């Protein structure tokens, strides 16, 4: 055998070995790979982004610069609340409850990671006429110790007053008729019925309510994510249909069902939805 042939044969042998090694490494690579290939999503998704305004202006905290319908100058210090039971309504009357049970959402004006809610449940493709949600937590779900971690656990509503969780903590200060600045804690949750003679609590009233978002219809396709900005207009807690006067109701309402009832009635108009394009 000539030297050239020998060299050629040797080169072929090396190439064969290299091929085998490469093939084997490919085998190793593919075997060790996690099964993380994305599965095509046969449904849509819904994201909410929360903002808080007073009369269309984003809330400027800790400064008395607003005035409510009752004429009270006021400021906002912090806003904390739960929304739950987001439901999509179709034209034929059918509805889809998304993020059922566990994934009620907590929003805290001090914690930016709570300002968005990317819902885990998928949405069947189709056309939806509107979105509703529960402000607060329904009686069925509002159980004490359901949230053991902070910040949600800081929203607990005392057992004596009905248990469960605050639906809303809206804290700030207002200026009374004598220009004295006073704190307010506009807190909503389970209301109490007090015996008029003994002052003992003899019953409870669940003040959660359903919010129907106007102009929230949408069409969603497979693999499409629909996003809405959910806007809370703080001033609307204090108007329409009832003017809420801090000078009359005072700064704390957890133990005042009449005041919480007004808050609830006003609350139907507090939120609005605005479709947004996510980049």
């Amino acid at each position, binding site marked *: 055998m000539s030297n050239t042939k020998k060299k050629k044969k040797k080169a072929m042998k090396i190439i064969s070995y290299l091929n085998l090694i490469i093939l084997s490494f490919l085998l190793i690579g593919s075997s060790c790979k996690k099964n993380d290939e994305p599965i095509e999503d046969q449904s849509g998704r819904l994201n909410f982004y929360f903002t808080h305004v007073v009369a269309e202006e984003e809330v400027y905290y800790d400064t008395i610069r607003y005035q409510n319908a009752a004429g009270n100058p006021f400021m906002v210090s912090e806003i904390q609340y739960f929304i739950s039971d987001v439901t999509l309504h179709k034209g034929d009357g059918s509805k889809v409850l998304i993020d059922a049970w566990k994934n009620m959402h907590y929003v805290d004006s001090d914690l930016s990671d709570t300002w968005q809610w990317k819902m885990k449940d998928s949405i069947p493709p189709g056309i939806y006429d509107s979105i509703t949600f529960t402000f607060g937590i329904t009686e069925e779900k509002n159980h004490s110790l359901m949230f053991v971690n902070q910040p949600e656990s800081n929203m607990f509503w005392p057992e004596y007053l009905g248990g469960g969780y605050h639906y809303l903590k809206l804290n700030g200060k207002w200026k009374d008729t004598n220009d004295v600045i006073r704190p307010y*804690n506009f807190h909503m949750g389970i209301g109490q019925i007090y015996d008029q003679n003994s002052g003992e609590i003899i019953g409870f009233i669940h003040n959660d309510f359903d919010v129907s978002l106007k102009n929230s219809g949408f069409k969603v396709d497979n693999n499409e994510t629909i996003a809405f900005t959910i806007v809370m207009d703080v001033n609307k807690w204090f108007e329409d249909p009832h003017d809420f006067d801090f000078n009359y109701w005072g700064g704390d309402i957890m133990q005042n069902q009449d005041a919480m009832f007004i808050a609830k009635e006003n609350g139907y108009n507090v939120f609005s939805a605005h479709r947004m394009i996510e980049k």
Partner: protein
Amino acid sequence: MRRFVYILIFTGIVALFFEACKKDSELDVYTPTPYMIDIPFGFPTKLNIPDDNPMTVEGVKLGRYLFYDGRLSGRTHPDSLMSCATCHRQQRSFEAGVDHPDFPGGFPHGITGLQTHHVMLPMINLVWNHSGYGWNGFLYPDNPVEELRNIEDFVRLAVLAKDEIDGDTTITTALFQSIQGYPDLFYQAFGSDKVTFKNIERAIAQFIRTLISANSRFDKYMRGEVQLNQSELNGFVLFTTEEGADCFHCHGGYGNPLFTTHLFYNNGKDTVFTDPFDRYKISGDPMDKGAYKATTLRNIEVQGPYMHDGRFATLEEVIEFYSHDLKQSPYINPLMHHINNGGVQLIPSEKQDLLNFIKTLRDDDFMTNPAFSRPEKFPDDQ
């Protein structure tokens, strides 16, 4: 022959494949025993344990020695010893307490006599604190300053601080390296017998994270094991109602058994704010002037003096303050909604009821738990 070489190479590669897919835990390296924290009834499930310092049985054991060993100061003369336990006493819920033999009134000072800027905070249930350690929360997990994030950093700061141990980390590290028994404990905890200050920090932090108080009479009441008496129940109602004493918004209750939100409030102690170490220093928010952490009320009965500056020696004084002596300022937290009345206006029987309820938060099991106590012997003791 060629076939033999192919088989040999292929076998080798298959063996390599299995080795490559092996999990770390299967590799032949020293692994200490994981320490599991049992979550008490109603307590949070999210723990503040940094990824680079997982809890281990061996780490906690070492941390306990270091916590109590006065040579943490880097000194060996009996007059110069100082450790965490010099100030943080178990029988006072790991605070100094007003009856500390060396710190009259519970005002601690460092080894050189320099007084600490604030009085102490208790070491209770810190594994559930996610919002900042210290009265102003200057150590917090997402602090851009990496050296100021967690309990580990507190250990280092305490060793270095002039008003605390006033030590030198290099000297302390070298000292423990030289003490018989410690290098072995470091090996067991961290897989290396070379003592580093980083591992000293880690071990002590691990021990501190085990200091869990969850067996007070109130805990037993929550679990349905005991009944509170009528005065205590009255106090509980006052504690958790807006029209009562309204303690719960900042200090928790049944739904937040940590008995703190771990947040910061201006609670109406003053009208002028000059302390350079209030919450404002950390947040930069002017509304945080004069704001400090709401401390846990667990074991508060033994944790005097009270407030960041220790201005109140007794709980009775604290209740009196919240009842009648609040001071208005532009920075008062809105949750202090009784401010315009000067306080919550409790009558004497209500003050007593509230006090009796707060005393149900005392956890004697915690304050006598042998697992948290000073070791009978240190590693180099015969």
